[in-house]
């Protein structure tokens, strides 16, 4: 029963890992991977010699930080906000609406983004014009707006779904703890910080790690789609670069080398964060 599954994983997950050999070889179509000439670390050297290389690495790190660190309080905040709503009907309506964007594809979200931020006739610009601005800003073509746009759309898409688990965790916090805190004189705010937040800190830790590892596989879709000629300096991240040089330009060996570095960086980041989280939550939350 398990057999097809194992075979599948070998074929689709582990063999490609073996394909990493490609990073060290100059790919010749007729020779295939195994027989192509070995070029050692040449591609890695090439990469670091490429003037844009450090910008790419920087972008990748920035984007990663934004998507993990900056993003991560938001679903928690939303969960806390939802938790404070007394009326059940309103709460579930808001919840339902809030997870809707999660189910849209990035293509659709990117299309929405371009449309709304379109100069002159996108709603964002119309609103700005109404408020007295110029209404002509071509947001997607300017570098300085990219991180903001990327961040906002990422939050927009993920906040609702992300809040679900937190909300569940919040409801699991022992209610008597709140009463005890109240008796000790804590007001609502203090209760929130000391009881709720620390009650869910295990969940927060796990989700942080999971988010990070999830980023490794889907982090680039958004960037790839939101990139334009105007913002490419900051929009291009390692993943996007791999896609372009590998799949679109056919430089297989080179792209694999870059991809491999990125994979290793990602793995190291996950391990480090895992360690950090394990320490912070006294070993309660960790992947293994």
């Amino acid at each position: 029963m398990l057999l097809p599954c194992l075979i599948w994983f070998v074929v689709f997950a582990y063999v490609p890992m073996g394909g990493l050999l490609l990073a060290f070889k100059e790919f010749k179509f007729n020779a295939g991977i195994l027989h192509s000439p070995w070029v050692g670390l040449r591609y890695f050297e090439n990469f670091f010699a490429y003037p844009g290389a450090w910008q790419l690495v920087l972008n990748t790190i920035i984007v990663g930080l934004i998507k993990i660190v900056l993003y991560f309080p938001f679903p928690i905040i939303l969960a806390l906000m939802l938790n404070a709503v007394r009326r059940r009907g309103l709460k579930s309506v808001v919840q339902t609406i809030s997870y809707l964007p999660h189910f849209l594809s990035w293509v659709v979200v990117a299309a929405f983004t371009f449309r709304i931020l379109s100069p002159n006739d996108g709603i964002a610009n119309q609103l700005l014009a109404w408020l007295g601005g110029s209404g002509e800003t071509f947001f997607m073509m300017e570098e300085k707006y990219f991180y903001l746009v990327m961040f906002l759309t990422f939050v927009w898409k993920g906040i609702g779904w992300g809040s679900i688990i937190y909300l569940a965790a919040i409801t699991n916090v022992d209610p008597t703890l709140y009463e005890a805190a109240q008796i000790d004189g804590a007001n609502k705010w203090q209760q929130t910080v000391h009881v709720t937040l620390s009650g869910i800190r295990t969940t927060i830790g796990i989700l942080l790690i999971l988010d990070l590892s999830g980023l490794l596989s889907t982090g680039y879709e958004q960037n790839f789609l939101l990139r334009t000629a105007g913002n490419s300096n900051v929009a291009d991240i390692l993943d996007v670069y791999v896609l372009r040089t590998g799949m679109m330009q056919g430089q297989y060996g080179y792209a694999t080398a870059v991809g491999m570095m990125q994979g290793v960086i990602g793995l190291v980041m996950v391990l480090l964060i895992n360690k950090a989280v394990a320490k912070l939550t006294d070993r309660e939350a960790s992947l293994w």
Partner: protein
Amino acid sequence: MRAKSNTAEKIAGAVNITLLLLLCLSILLPFANILALSFNDGTDSALGGISIWPREFTWANYQEVFHNDDILQSLKISVLRTGIGTALSVLLTAMAAFALKKKTLPGRNVYMFFIVFTMLFGGGIVPYYMVLKSLYLTNTFWVYIIPALYSAWNIILMRTFFQSIDDSLEESAKIDGAGDYKVFFRIILPLSLPVLAVIGLFNAVGHWNDWYAGTFFVKDKDLYPLQTLLKQMLDSAEAMRKKMMVVYLPGDPRQNVTGESLKMATLVVATLPIVCVYPFVQRYFVKGLMIGSVKG
């Protein structure tokens, strides 16, 4: 024993609700905008100023969508892959999860690690593509199905659920002489409908929304799923229009369809299934997510 709400708390509560409503608006407004544009006359839209309601209502954009062969073909592909892919995937994932839940399976922990590790590290897109190519999957319909059959995440989710099914059910069936497959089909599956539904829905959404495989692993336009086609339209609204190369008689409403307005209508068509089905099934998604999170 509730403390009485004082004014500060009331204000905080009101602010809270306002912010939440703003969030909802931010989600609903873009939808309204796109809908309005899709129902609006193309050349009129180009003048700008449309917000959430069409100015010059027309069906023309949709007429064009449903007459456009490219769009119809990609719709067919999307529907097919979602149906077939999801069915196969759910079945196979369930089999794997079932096998993995048994405590008596030799090497069980090794297999689990094997699977989980793939969530953390991979060969990258180029080697992946090479593997696909060497298996002759590229540029075929099956490239959408086979590589998507399993996902470590789904396996773990299902396994967690299966573990909650009482072992005694299985044991008594075994005593009665049932083999593994019988147990699986007759006992486990019927009991697992909720989790099967959830995984099925996750899978279906994944298939429906995937633009990636079509963009990089397929050359034939006839094999593009809807999202890939949409992405192309996103890249070049005017190119899409020029390709149509049909001249409409004056007075035909389709005369005024522009690349942009066609794009809007296609967007709506691409999103509609999800938006329609979504309110009814989101409860199950949420449940599924919770089941998975219990593992942590």
